[in-house]
């Protein structure tokens, strides 16, 4: 059998041959009956290979993979929770802290692989996930008091803080008040950003974190 034909045969049968080579194979097969017989045999082989592929349920093993994925997640959430908890730890109780005097040195470090998007919706407006390392440090600046909806999830709050360039300066208090510090000059943008979010019930600029809240 012709060497070129032998070489091109499998790709002719599986349809990945270019037009020129395809034309050559067809002309050759038209002139050589044994070549056409080989093509037919190869097509039969292809059909049997495709038909004998195992039929499985599409979700075979899916539960186990999801279990693994979810087992990996709580460790990450706990790490971030403890990190944020350290940031939100209130200073000495009972001492009034005027604006500018609050040493709200809040550093939120977003590390690649730590933060997962917890939302499960398929909305095209999904927040982009932050990957890579990014540090936002806000020592001073305007203060916002924010109330989140009762069913707001921690991950949603975290993502929103980063999107609004806000850091946690206090809260949550007994009334569910959170105090967020934003960079000077960005308070309007931050308020707008926060108000657009369904999980934010109220947001307003305040002069300072009250002694007891």
């Amino acid at each position: 059998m012709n060497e070129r034909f032998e070489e091109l045969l499998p790709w002719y049968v599986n349809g990945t041959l270019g037009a020129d080579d395809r034309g050559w194979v067809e002309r050759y097969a038209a002139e050589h009956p044994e070549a056409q017989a080989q093509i037919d045999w190869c097509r039969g082989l292809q059909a049997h290979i495709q038909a004998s592929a195992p039929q499985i349920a599409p979700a075979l093993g899916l539960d186990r993979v999801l279990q693994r994925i979810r087992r990996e997640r709580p460790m990450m959430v706990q790490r971030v929770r403890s990190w944020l908890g350290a940031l939100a730890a209130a200073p000495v109780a009972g001492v009034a802290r005027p604006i500018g005097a609050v040493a709200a040195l809040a550093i939120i470090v977003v590390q690649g692989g730590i933060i997962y998007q917890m939302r499960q919706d398929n909305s095209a407006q999904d927040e982009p996930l932050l990957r890579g390392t990014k540090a936002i440090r806000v020592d001073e600046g305007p203060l916002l008091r924010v109330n989140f909806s009762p069913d707001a999830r921690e991950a949603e709050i975290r993502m929103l803080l980063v999107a609004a360039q806000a850091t946690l300066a206090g809260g949550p208090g007994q009334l569910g008040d959170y105090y967020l510090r934003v960079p000077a000059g960005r308070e309007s943008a931050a308020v707008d950003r926060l108000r657009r979010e369904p999980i934010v019930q109220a947001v307003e600029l305040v002069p300072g974190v009250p002694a007891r809240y």
Partner: protein
Amino acid sequence: MDDATARQLLVRVARGDEAAFERLYRAHSRRVYAYVLNLLKDPSRAEEVLVDAMHEVWRSAERFRGDAKFSTWLLGIARNKALLAYRSRRADEDHDDIDDLSETLAAEDDANGFAQLAQKQRREGVRQCMGKLTEEHRECLHLVFFEGYSIEDVAALQSVPENTVKTRLFHARQKMRNCLRLLLEREA
């Protein structure tokens, strides 16, 4: 599922979207399982590798560079997992090699020989003969005739030159033909 859709879902998977991952999983589980089963010939091991491979897809979604089709990338992951599983198999789990068959049978390249073979070969016979090939030959046939890969894609996945793919395919087809012919002769 077309490649563009798979890529879009993968972007969402990289953001931790479980729903997107589940869609991707359901759309590709059969092809991964079929590919791995073809390599390992063991359904329970194939299922383990399927789970490992898809878990790796979840963890590595952001590393997909987009210079290959999603399915090629996916099967590459499955291949690596399958090779690990294969290397841990027992020493006595050997395949039957039909190298000897290609020596003893006369090659009948005439039109009648192939025509008869094409008419009479059955699915079970094909499956049986595929099982007797080496892993590389079996994988090659699977990628070409089940996945429909081009020679470039097969060479990339198997990490060999294109000439090696051509050689493997040639020998694999020879062995399949001889094996099927033997089966038919036994039946007759």
